[in-house]
């Protein structure tokens, strides 16, 4: 079928603003950023108007010889521990609020409020919770779990800062995945649940035998999203600990950011290379995720 040229012209006119902006600020930086990873390029070269100098894999060799990058990469991988906790909690909470009971709308909205909170506010608020004199210590003391002498600032602890930052990620994330799971739960036919109830299946059995298998596509999507998000964690670290204490919360994307913008030499080449490594890890993990959750139907009845 021939398309009238007027339609084509009109279509491209309407699309032009979006295409130009996407080209300049999305596609070009993707390509150019990947190229920069293989070059020597820094603030000085940029200021003098010099082009990036191709250096092959030199940046990558430098990265893997840099203990700070290795720490950052390890921390980012350790950060993935938040994913199962987040997904189980979100799915569990979604199941709890999915029933038609009074007040559920309030819970759903309330659980979502942390998601619409700016990271800046989260930083201010959670610092008071994690403070030496903050709520977390008070709570533990009140429950008789710690003594008044054993109190410390959680974000200043080399051991605990990492988990404290992760708790903020968890807090900001579970409402988001809860909503996605709710959408999936709405699609499960009610008759199925009712039949199971008549069969005498307990709530626990219904959850594992009906909800989880039928929610598999949603679980795959959410795990995928949250794996990539956990790997890319930057803002939480930036505002809560700035990578410290002693680099214990320093993540891979923090490395990308600080090499490009916080050092003396603005090493764009090295930062881009680090970004490419993170992107490669993200791709591999997505693939693994997909393989894990997209298993053939063997164990479904």
């Amino acid at each position, binding site marked *: 079928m021939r398309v009238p040229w007027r339609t*084509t012209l009109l*279509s491209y006119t309407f699309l032009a603003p979006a295409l130009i902006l996407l080209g300049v600020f999305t596609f070009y*930086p993707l390509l150019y950023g990947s190229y920069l990873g293989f070059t020597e390029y820094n603030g000085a070269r940029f200021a003098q108007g010099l082009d990036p100098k191709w250096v092959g894999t030199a940046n990558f060799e430098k990265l893997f010889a840099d203990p700070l990058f290795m720490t950052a990469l390890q921390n980012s991988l350790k950060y993935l521990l938040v994913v199962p906790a987040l997904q189980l909690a979100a799915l569990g909470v979604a199941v709890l609020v999915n029933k038609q009971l009074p007040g559920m709308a309030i819970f759903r*909205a309330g659980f979502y409020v942390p998601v619409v909170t700016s990271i*800046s*506010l989260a*930083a*201010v608020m959670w610092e008071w919770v994690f403070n030496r004199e903050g709520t977390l210590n008070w709570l533990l003391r009140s429950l008789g779990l710690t003594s008044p002498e054993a109190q410390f600032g959680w974000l200043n602890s080399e051991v605990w800062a990492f988990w404290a930052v992760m708790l903020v990620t968890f807090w900001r994330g579970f409402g988001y995945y809860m909503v996605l799971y709710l959408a999936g739960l709405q699609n499960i036919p009610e008759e199925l649940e009712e039949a199971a109830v008549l069969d005498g299946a307990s709530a626990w059995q219904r959850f594992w035998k009906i909800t989880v298998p039928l929610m598999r596509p949603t679980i795959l999507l959410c795990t995928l999203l949250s794996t990539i998000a956990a790997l890319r964690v930057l803002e939480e670290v930036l505002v809560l600990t700035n990578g410290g204490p002693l680099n214990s919360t320093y993540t891979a994307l923090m490395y990308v950011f600080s090499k490009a913008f916080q050092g003396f030499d603005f090493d764009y080449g090295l*930062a881009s290379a680090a970004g490419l490594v993170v992107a490669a890890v993200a791709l591999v993990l997505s693939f693994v995720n997909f393989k894990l959750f997209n298993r053939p139907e063997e164990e479904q009845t």
Partner: protein
Amino acid sequence: MSLTAATPARAAGRTVAWRQPVALMLRYAVLILILLFALFPFIWTLAIALTDKTAGTSIYAFPQSLFPQRVTLHNFVDVFRSFALGKALWNSVVITALTVLGTLLISALAAYPLARFRFPGSALIFGAILATLVLPSETTFIVNTLTLKKLGLLGTYGGVVIPTIAGAFGIFLMRQAFVSVPVALLEAARLDGASELTILTRIMLPLTKPSLAALGIFTTVTTWNAYFWPMLVLSGAPDKAPMAVAVLKLKGQFNYDPFNIAAGAIIMMLPVLIVFLAAQRLFLRGMEGAVK
């Protein structure tokens, strides 16, 4: 599972009947605990913001600091005066308004041909736009900062806004909305001699108001809250920084005053919270629609 187990199940159903109220109470107890976890930082911040600091109470005096003895609005006035928060608030308003307008305009324009015409390259363009959702974006902020510097946009509102307004999410959302408008309506308009731009503005946009609203609200919330990108673009122009950036700067100040910061935090959060609570249904539906 077998259906023959129906009889014992009924018997079991009778014996567990008393458990139902217990299960219900347990469900609510768990939900209330989680709600406390989700909202506690806000409740505490609000309490601190309303506390009269001249009374000499510490914000860490638990649990008394949750129930301020003397309530005052003075902290809100104070934070405006001593930290020039009014300017930051204005910056947030400008940046958010420009981003929302830009996003709606660009998304609607781009979505119209993608929803309504088949033309050479349409599938490729749509595919490329969707691909941006999954492409690894780890290095884009570096190159974008360099581009903005070259264009002389670093340290301007435009530098914050322009790179963010063309996005797959908005275009995709509007395209889905446009696809659902009946073809007959458009054909009737065309027979009447309406131009495509007229059709877009007079027929398509009014009919897809809910989607436009959802996209607008979504963009408002994310832009208002954004920290990293405005921080990066405006690092050399602190006078243009939005509240999300300014509030954190307050925290780092020498004369650290938790009461004022709490007040600043509440001022920053209120607009988003009001928008979210008022348009909750739309917002959550937009979220779900975005992943389907």
